[in-house]
């Protein structure tokens, strides 16, 4: 029969009568211990070897124990000093004895505790008396320490338990508990040939050729058919391999885009730096609205925008001042074209919606239309674990002949369901540009907490009329980071976004799909 080479060697080295240890076999065959062990178990599984396991115990002196071999146990030293000081005849001052015994530090406590335990004498009110008959010469613990030191082999600090047969087990336990020696236990496997093993050897065993790697040469020569492949440890950890990965927030953005495209939405694109006209005035945000003050917006140090559609500017101004329709009122706020023309970083991507709805971006739009963007916006907010100065806003709107609040609700229920957020609730809200307006709340898929997930509404007549839109438009906005934190479980938004990003976090981030 044919067996792999290591198995053949082990089988030949094993005996039917003597129990041999695996270490012994490894030495005999010149195999590495782990290779020999593997071969032994493979042979056992084949029924050729019997393996017996026995516990082996060895003892080893600790540094403290080794020190006492020469110096003597502290309690013995104390006893001898005490006897010398006359303590065998009557109590003597303890301090004197301790000094004479040359004990210091923790040794003092050790000496006193064991002195009493072993009956070498008594300690009372700071005085010490010794039992003159005590036999410290044959103190079993001291004797055992010396025996252990003598049993140490060449360069070998452990002594097998069977070399210490004379020493009482209780004494060894005591020394272990005093931390003077250490006990080492291990399993020793011994091997004997089974009958099947003997038979196989008698019938003749040959080494099969095994190979480690499959090479191109083997494939072309056909040699692969005659070889055995070395078995690998397929459970062992492999070295780390890193590939590139799309940023975790981008993955969420891509997922959102997929969902919206699937729902029939077209993507918008437009400038990050834009005139306040598109960012705010078209949205019927009064110019003295708190969100338009300098501490909320990033104004840019550049000249005002060059071109705005003049007739649209006129209509927007008139709307701010007078409102729209017979029964409409304007704001009682100042309005200046200079402010409208000033350039700032957009605080929301609704500026894109305004550009598209006005017909200036891609021409006039006839209903029905659905548009979206997942793009960056800039807010002069406090930077913390949940707020960034720039973040992604998901913006979407639907234009149709006839839309109601129910259509708005239906769209959002559908959208959020794609992200596992069900039970969407609509809390009536106020925005200058939509009426009715709703804050959207949803249940966190894992914590069950009710959290704000967006802001929505039907664009006001004051927004749509100046833009020349004669149909209903519903719109909504939501921070992508909020959705990403919900779906990835990230707790600090700054781990996700920006130059403080931790590469380990990005490399280890779970893939979104």
């Amino acid at each position: 029969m044919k067996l792999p080479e290591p198995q053949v060697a082990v089988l030949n080295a094993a005996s039917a009568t003597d129990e041999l240890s695996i270490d012994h076999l490894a030495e005999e065959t010149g195999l590495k211990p782990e290779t020999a062990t593997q071969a032994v178990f493979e042979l056992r599984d084949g029924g050729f070897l019997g393996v017996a396991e026995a516990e082996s115990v060895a003892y080893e002196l600790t540094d403290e124990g080794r020190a006492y071999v020469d110096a003597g146990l502290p309690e013995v030293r104390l006893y001898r000093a005490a006897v010398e000081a006359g303590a065998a005849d009557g109590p003597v001052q303890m301090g004197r004895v301790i000094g004479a015994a040359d004990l210091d530090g923790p040794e003092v406590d050790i000496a006193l505790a064991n002195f009493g335990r072993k009956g070498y004498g008594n300690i009372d009110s700071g005085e010490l008396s010794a039992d003159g008959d005590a036999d410290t010469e044959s103190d079993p613990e001291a004797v055992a320490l010396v025996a252990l030191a003598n049993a140490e082999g060449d360069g070998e600090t452990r002594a097998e338990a069977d070399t210490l047969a004379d020493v009482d087990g209780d004494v060894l336990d005591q020394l272990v508990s005093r931390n003077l020696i250490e006990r080492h236990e291990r399993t020793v496997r011994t091997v004997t040939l089974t009958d099947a093993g003997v038979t196989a050897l008698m019938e003749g065993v040959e080494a099969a050729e095994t190979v480690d790697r499959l090479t191109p040469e083997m494939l072309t020569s056909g040699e692969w058919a005659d070889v055995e492949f070395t078995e690998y440890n397929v459970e062992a950890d492999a070295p780390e391999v890193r590939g590139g990965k799309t940023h975790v927030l981008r993955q969420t953005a891509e997922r959102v885009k997929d969902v919206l495209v699937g729902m029939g939405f077209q993507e918008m694109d437009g400038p990050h730096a834009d005139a306040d006209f598109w960012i705010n005035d078209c949205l019927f945000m009064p110019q003295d609205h708190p969100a338009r003050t300098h501490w909320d917006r990033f104004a840019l140090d550049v000249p005002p925008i060059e071109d705005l559609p003049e007739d649209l500017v006129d209509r927007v101004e008139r709307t701010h001042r007078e409102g729209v329709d017979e029964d409409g009122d304007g704001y009682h706020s100042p309005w200046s074209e200079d402010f409208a023309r000033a350039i700032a970083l957009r605080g929301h991507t609704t500026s894109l919606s305004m550009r598209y709805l006005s017909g200036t971006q891609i021409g006039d739009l006839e209903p029905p239309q659905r548009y979206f963007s997942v793009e960056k916006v800039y807010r002069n907010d406090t930077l913390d674990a949940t707020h960034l100065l720039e973040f992604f806003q998901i913006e979407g709107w639907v234009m149709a002949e006839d839309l109601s609040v129910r259509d708005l609700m239906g769209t959002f229920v559908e959208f959020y369901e794609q992200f596992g957020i069900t039970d969407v609730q609509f809390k009536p809200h106020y925005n200058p540009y939509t009426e009715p307006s709703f804050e959207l709340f949803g249940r966190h898929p894992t914590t069950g907490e009710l959290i704000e997930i967006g802001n929505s509404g039907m664009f006001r007549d004051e927004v749509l009329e100046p833009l020349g839109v004669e149909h209903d438009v519903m719109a909504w906005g939501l921070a992508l980071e909020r959705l990403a934190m919900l779906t990835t479980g990230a707790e600090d938004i700054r781990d996700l976004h920006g130059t403080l990003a931790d590469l380990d976090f990005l490399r280890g981030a779970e893939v979104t799909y």
Partner: protein
Amino acid sequence: MPVVDIDPDELRELTGHEEKGDEELKSDLFGLGLEYEGETEEGLLQFEFGPDRLDRLSVEGVARSLRYHYGDARGVAVPDTNDPDFTYVVDANVPDERPYVTGAIVRGVTLDEAALDSLIQLQEKLHATMGRKRAKGAIGIHDLVAIKGDVLSEEGDGNSITYTGIDPEGDTFVPLDSDREMTPAAVLEEHPTGEKYADIVREYDRYPAIYDELGLFSFPPVINGRRTEVSTDSRDLLVELTGTDQWTIDRMCNIICYALSARGATIEDVEIVYGESSPEGERTLVRPDFEVETKSVSHDRIERMLGVEFASEEVVDLFERSGLGAVVVDSEDPETTSYEVSIPPYRVDVLHPLDLVDDVGRAYGFDELEPRYPDVGTVGGRHERSRLEAATRNVLTGLGFEDLLNFHMTSETEVYERMNVEVGSDILGGGDPVRITEPYSEDYEILRPWALPSLAMVLENNTHRAYPQDLAEVGLVAERDDDVNTRVRERRHVAGVLARHDATYEDAKARLQTICRDFDVDLETPPTEHPSFIDGRVASVVIDGEPVGVVGELHPEILVEHDLELPVAAFEFDLEALGDE
């Protein structure tokens, strides 16, 4: 969003619902859009709400809304007012910047501590919201007992106070929370409240001032005089508001008057006499302005907006439960049925009939509406640039790059100085920066003109992480360009760095070649110079004949500056070069 602090006992008393527990009140208020936020140290309940219903900035207004909600009140209620006894004369010297005044006399108030606190809170919240931090409108409330009206000389049958403007050093008075005479100018310098609101009036030639027969008693919008301070002993009040817009201060005044009227006070009209030099010329107004406005809403609009069919009686009922009055017009024909809706004078949020539709929806309960998916078909699709970005990211991650997402705002030091690039130099990254006017911090003061500095910062922040670090980003860069309509030239750049022990120019170029091959564009790399890179190991990225970027080995100075202890090969170029056009 505004927050109102409410004493639940006061709320129970004012609504007449002593049986309501705190939890029940919270839940009822949530239904009105007031969200419970927590409790103050004094045990007041705090509620946050949208900044439209500013008439709910105090417990009196919240109680009124609840009474409508419970059905205890219906329709529009307007307090009776007594004929004017006081006249507010607007003097020709009044500051041009703040020409308007309004007010009311309130008699027979009973102010216990809670009521006084509530009044002060309402005043402060109105300042913060409608009053735009007092710049647009500011309220002064005075104890009438302390005011001696200048008897009008001609008619001789009334009292008057005068709103005027004085030299900053022109007179003195003892302001609230002080015990010494100060000029208005000194108040701005030395009084804590004065310092806080100094910016509003600092540029005025003349400071706003209100006088009675005894002299200066108020310095709006900054601070009142101590002489007329309101206390729990006050019985009659003089309310004055000054501002930059008559409508705004009139509405603020109405909200104050409604709140005091809810506590049993009687409102007395005042006459406001503007002279020739005022913006609208000579005229006399009677205030407070409790005129009830009306707007017309069509039945059809309500049904279409809410997606629900209503009977007209039901709509009238919903209006009345919102504190509005409604009369059906043309009820015979549902196509043309409309409602003449009357709006109480404390409402500041009704600009258009559709705001009234919202009220109907709230009264009906938006949660009663059944969501439905809109039955209109559209075709979805990505923007071409967004597809190009995504495809480029795919190629980069396929090449083993970790895709990054950095801020577009950064500091000037990071993109120029730390990269050895001079502002305004004719190289990649050397363009004029787009500056933020009032930056939040030095870390975010410009838009980045190129992306490699961001990647270098990420490398710098991750020197403790395993190498190789191959990082890439497809993202926005911007530079100042006055030929562009928005004055900002926005581009998307593709940037990559290879930080590894054996990184060389060839590693960067190899990847660049693959990217260009994948997008089927021609790549040439003629030698160039760039101060961020090692001379002789840097090339211009020329795609389809156009120079669009740079590739090379980062200069050791840049590496050391970023605490990097290994070579970095890098490239950056314009994304559009990979596109079809």
